[in-house]
């Protein structure tokens, strides 16, 4: 896949993609991509967290059930975590979480977990372009207004 082809494909209506990024690696990588003017699809909205290990699966579940078409979590490369082992916990937790997505009626391809370091601007561009392309190929997510799961999550988040 060439990056330019996906970028030019931005004519399709935007979908809702939420990104949870760790401050030290991936958020920095996204900054580096910006500084390098690595053009990306515009669908993604980034939420900054201290560590990918801070990502509560609840955040992702809630985003997906509230209508996000895709969720991307990105942290530091294995063994290169600002908090020693936060990304390790994130990976374990999120891998299990991905298995559970079909139970919630969500296509697991709508959720990805990746590693991008602060110096990897180009890699970030590739990750965003590929993931956005993947979400566009899946199309808009089925909205679940009033789904019981959502209610449950809303309560437990309270």
């Amino acid at each position, binding site marked *: 896949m060439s990056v330019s082809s996906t970028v030019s494909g*931005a004519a399709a209506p*935007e979908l*809702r993609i*939420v990104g949870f990024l760790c*401050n*030290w*690696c991936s*958020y*920095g990588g*996204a*900054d580096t*991509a*910006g*500084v390098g*003017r*690595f*053009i*990306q699809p*515009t669908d993604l*909205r*980034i*939420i*900054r*967290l*201290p*560590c990918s*290990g*801070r*990502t*509560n*699966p*609840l*955040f992702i579940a*809630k*985003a997906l059930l*509230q*209508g*996000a078409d895709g969720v991307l979590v990105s942290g*530091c490369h294995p*063994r*290169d*975590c*600002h*908090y*020693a*082992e*936060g990304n390790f*916990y*994130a990976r374990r*937790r999120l891998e299990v979480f991905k298995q559970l997505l079909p139970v919630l009626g969500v296509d697991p391809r709508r959720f990805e977990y990746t590693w991008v*370091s*602060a*110096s990897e601007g180009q890699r970030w*561009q590739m990750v965003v372009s590929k993931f956005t392309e993947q979400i566009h190929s899946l199309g808009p997510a089925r909205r679940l207004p009033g789904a019981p799961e959502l209610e449950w999550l809303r309560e*437990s*988040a309270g």
Partner: protein
Amino acid sequence: MKIGVFICHCGSNIAATVDVKKVAETAGRMAEVVYATDAMYACSEPGQQAIEEAVKKYALSGVVVASCSPRMHEATFRRTVERAGLNRYMFEMANIREHVSWIGRDQGPNTVKAIELVRMAVEKLRLNRALIPRKLPATRRALVIGGGVAGIQASLDCAEAGLEVVLVEREPSIGGKMSKLDKTFPTVDCSSCILGPRMVDVAQHERITLYAYSEIESVSGYVGNFEVVIRKKAAYVDWDKCTGCGLCIEKCPSKKNFDRFNEGLGSAAAINIPFPQAIPKKAVIRAEDCRQFQGKKCGICAKFCPTGAINHEQQDELVTIQVGAIVAATGYDLADWTVYGEYGAGRYADVITSLQYERMLSASGPFGGHIKRPSNGEEPKSVVFIQCVASRDPSIGRPYCSGFCCMYTAKQAIMTRDHIPDSQSYVFYMDIRSPGKGYDEFTRRAQEEYGAQYVRGRVSQVYPRGNKLVVRGADTLLGSQVEVEADLVVLAVGGEGSREAAGLAEKLRISYDSFGFFLEGHPKLKPVETNTAGVFLAGSCQGLKDIPFSVSQGSAAAAKTLALLSRDMLESDPQTAQVDIKRCIGCGKCIQVCPFQAIREADLRGQSKAEVLEAVCQGCGLCNATCPQGAIQLSHFTDNQVLAEVEALLCP
């Protein structure tokens, strides 16, 4: 809450592809926003002034700035709102430059995205609360890791300014790569003559404690209060008794061992002092080379040592120290040049590395400063230098220019003619990179005064014919293939991060790249800082550098260390985890996952509860994501704050 929103144009950086006015207008209608405006440069003096004035005029209780990355200017604007009388955590940033205007070309979607990011910031800010940093005492002692020229400079500067310094070096002597060099460019002065006195200064300085032949075992704690365990490797020699007389080396029967200091040229005794100017000048036994350790009867060194310093029973020793700041100066290693099968490196004795050539040129080296072909000891008359070996070569994963090879190759070509007047040097190069004072002139001298033949092109193959080496390459300026018979081929091998760098980075919790270089805090504005407070970088561990640049960085890292530790008390980051005692069920999951042992079990009226040691907590939020009750929350990044952002985006 009364919120003020400021949308920055950043000149045309943002305004060119985001309708800034429209973003400000829309922001003005968001919940609890009482004032919204745009600004040409929010970070400039008038920009900050405007924010301060607005806070006062509209009695704002929180501020959102939509501009560049918070990694760039969050600290700046926090100071701004603080000056205006707000708590610095009553501030949020929306990144509409790096994440919007610079990566999307269309104004329409960019503007929508910017508005949504601002709304997310506003919604989060509505749940922010004031946080107060705590004061912590700092240990006024610095650790410098790596005793090359950068580490030496950092140590001396810190010590001169009155700080206690602990210098840790993995090799038996400090001096690093520079101590292996014969001469330095572009002045051709003797490397050991300029480095030697500095090494002696380190040894003699009252405030510097040197641990040579030692490594970092573990690092814990945080800025101002690190606890570091140093492993002093067993030298099998009691250094308190060793006088460095060298009698043991002379008598040692195991002499044919790989000579690490001389890059494998010549050989070393199993008990050895790497070079005459070594600091400390103490002997070390390499167990893998020693007859005694190989189960043979020996002990000759012990028999002859006049002070009885030899101790084959010696064990590694662990030393724990407290420091307030750490400077990593671990330097570089040569990249693996043996991957170039076409050069026959590692197969042909007369194909050597530039660093081996330095040892050959050095008067204190294994050949006594005479250039000889390793295969037969003859003096070479034709020497071919191949530049960019393991540099600028994406095919082996080394796409960067090592930066110093062009210059040292010119120096080596000059030294070759200097040592052997009837010799001819050929330098195969791709481009000559010589920015620096007197650098380009130096490469010209190599050609004009010392007759080095520079050939613009690469070498495709080196192979032996008779007792010569045939070097086949291209001269792209000529547009033809060229061939030259060489007696000696010197590969100008590039560098990469030290082989142990990754392991150390993990201990220090700093980032490193795929080449083993540590990541600086900001490529321009924080070149010697890291993302971990209190850890600084100096020299080639951050990226390859020549000597003057490494020395400058050593001084820069020392300045940063001194600035940090000049205060008696440091402020801790209040973005720490907090336990809601009512919700905590004492399950202990948070204690298990905390990477910093910052949570402990506390007894509250007979019930087990989690308790956060705020001074130790680093604010990663692992516990928060793990807690089944949502009882432990990371301040400033609580579940509700993050979910408010999600909701602001999806259910506006």
